[in-house]
């Protein structure tokens, strides 16, 4: 057992910090909450790509660096710490590239992976449908073979990244007669094709990160199929472990935590800084304690992945924990800022750039996206604790 990062890893962390601090200093962007999913900045993504920080964990023969998942965790932890606008490449780097490395053909790897590495694939995740949320296997969007093509018909919803995507990762039904888990396949294709209509969904923060996507007679080449036909559901289960596994489930609002600490030091009530109030100190310390416990969960997940095992219950545990923490962070921020929390980020006199307001609203969705906390607890109960399903 060794909780120390290697010297190289510590140097790597410092290098990322220096890079991000430099970017902020140059005024290229401002740290913000949820920037991993809301901060679309193609130029930032290009600069990250130039640093070689996309595809860090992929094998070298596919243009990656063959580095351990823990290195990527360090990278994402720092991106989140500084609230960097990494949304353009986040999904492609986190799960799509890995899925192509794992399930793609040689041709797909040659064509698609370099594009992801260059930071040019802004991927939308086409999974949920109006009647297929937690029960993903009930999806109805069809992919019908037609010569050298598949024809896609149907509707996706809550498609993360949909409003900025140029590629979509789509799960569709390829065998309507098979049992529902066994007739699903995965596809990856460009979104500038005829018949695709993206309708943004405004969330309760006023922002847009998920969308409805309609497919009407969309013709995609057969080479868009990723992995084995009709095995998509099993492929995606594995992919979901990775989707849930990251630091973004714990630290999406880290800029709020930092700002809140600063706010309590600078704001006086009854003649004393808020940070001297025992109740405020206790709340902030509790957040710190919970954050550090969450980081241990996240590092454990990365270590499981580095052992070559899918973190199939560890990532469920860390996501449930992390998203609940973020909701408590928002709650504590509200309690500390008091009446001011009513002021929207655009309002005069809003404290800490409205981050508390934003997080309170945005964190409601954290325990829903990428597996609701209820589904993830089911996974924990069945896979880790082996409780009976009936």
């Amino acid at each position: 057992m060794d909780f120390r990062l290697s010297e190289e890893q510590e140097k790597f962390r410092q290098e990322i910090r220096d890079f991000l601090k430099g970017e902020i200093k140059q005024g290229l962007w401002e740290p913000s909450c949820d920037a991993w999913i809301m901060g679309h900045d193609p130029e930032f993504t290009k600069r990250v790509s130039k640093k070689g920080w996309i595809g860090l964990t992929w094998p070298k023969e596919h243009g990656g660096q063959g580095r351990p998942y823990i290195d990527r965790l360090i990278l994402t932890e720092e991106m989140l710490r500084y609230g960097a606008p990494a949304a353009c490449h986040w999904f492609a780097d986190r799960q799509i590239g890995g899925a192509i490395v794992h399930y793609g053909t040689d041709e797909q790897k040659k064509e698609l992976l370099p594009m992801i590495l260059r930071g040019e694939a802004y991927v939308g995740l086409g999974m949920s449908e109006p009647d297929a949320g937690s029960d993903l296997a009930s999806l109805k969007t069809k992919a019908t073979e037609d010569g050298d093509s598949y024809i896609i018909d149907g509707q996706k919803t809550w498609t993360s990244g949909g409003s900025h995507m140029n590629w979509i990762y789509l799960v569709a039904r390829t065998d309507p007669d098979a049992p529902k888990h066994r007739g699903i396949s995965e596809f990856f294709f460009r979104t500038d094709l005829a018949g695709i209509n993206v309708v943004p969904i405004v969330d309760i923060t006023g922002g847009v990160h998920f969308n409805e996507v309609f497919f009407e007679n969309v013709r995609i080449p057969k080479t868009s199929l990723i992995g084995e036909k009709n095995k998509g559901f099993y492929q995606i289960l594995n992919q979901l472990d990775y989707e849930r596994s990251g630091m973004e489930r714990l630290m999406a609002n880290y800029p709020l935590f930092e700002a809140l600490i600063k706010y309590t030091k600078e704001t006086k009530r009854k003649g004393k800084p808020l940070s001297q109030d025992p109740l405020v100190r206790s709340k902030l310390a509790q957040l710190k304690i919970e954050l550090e416990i969450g980081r241990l969960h996240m590092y454990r997940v990365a270590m499981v992945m580095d052992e070559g095992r899918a973190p199939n219950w560890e990532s469920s545990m860390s996501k449930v924990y992390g998203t609940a923490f973020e909701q408590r962070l928002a709650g504590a921020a509200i309690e500390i800022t008091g009446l001011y929390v009513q002021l929207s980020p655009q309002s005069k006199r809003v404290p800490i750039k409205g981050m508390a307001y934003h997080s309170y609203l945005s964190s409601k969705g954290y325990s829903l996206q990428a597996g609701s906390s209820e589904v993830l607890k089911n996974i924990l109960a069945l896979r880790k604790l082996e409780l009976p399903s009936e």
Partner: protein
Amino acid sequence: MQLALSEEQEMLRTMARDFLSDKLPKATVKEMEESEAGYSPELWKEMAGLGWMGLAFPEKYGGSGMSFLDLAILIEEMGGACLPGPYFSSVVLSGFTILDIGSEEQKAAYLPKIASGEKIFTLALTEAGASYDASGIETKASAEGDNYVISGTKLFVPDANVADYMLVVAKTDKGFTIFIVDARSAGISYTVLKTIAEDKLCEVVFDKVKVPKTNILGEPDKGWPEVEKIIQRGAAAKCSEMVGCIQKALDMTVEYAKDRKQYGRPIGSFQVIQHYCADMATDVDGTRLSAYKAAWMLSEGLPCTQEVAIAKAWAGEACQRVMALAHQIHGAIGVTIDHDLQYYTRRAKAAEVSFGDATFYREVVAREMGL
């Protein structure tokens, strides 16, 4: 970074688990709890024979030269088995302190006796103020010739009823000093207090107890930073004990949920029970990860004020959540005195407040954060 235990550590864990499950059925725990001594001298000897008392002491003092982290693994198993007795007092609180700040003569004189189990040590620190800060210490030691004379009353002294020696923290001229005191010295009397964990916490009265100056542990008047280290080690080891405690409570609960049928199906198939169990498992793992980190940092000699504070603050509250759900799932059978769950419930509460509760450590974390 890697979180797996070494092969040796896994062996230690297996050996400890096998030994304790063989030697310590709950009926035996109960007997030990109800006995006057609060432990079994036979079992004590066997544990010493396995090298447990000296596990983390250097070989030259009769130990096995293993680490604090190794010790934490053993203590985790003790927590899972509800082992009563003075192991914690003698080894964690006293032995390590002597190893840390004792003179060569003191180490040579006492550590082999602790390692062999021949002598039992304990720590007399807390008093009526029931706190772990210096302001709670009223017991005084005044220099008189070659001796100090100690007067005052210590509370919550573990295992004073069976201790041969006590490390006594007392106010001296310009600070605090730690003394190694023969527990049978004239002027010492004790009363065993009835406790929730049925452990032997004692009130110990020091009435003009003479202690030779040579029995000062560390430097006179400069004892408080050392006391803080004792509290830190105690807190970290307590976290490991708590991990064992709540892991066992979780295991028992999951087994019960698989077995117990209502409405024609195991209650563990109901989602609400599954989610309770998932919540318990998440709390157990968070406690384990942070307890290991704290123990590892102590093992490595790294500064870890914040890490120990985080681990203990978390463990204290996580234990209460886990035990509450364990009881909820067990239903009425779990609140009977004949069911094993109550051993863990009682110990979890005692462990929560021992060596600092969450409120105490949140303030430590706040200071560490620069608030």
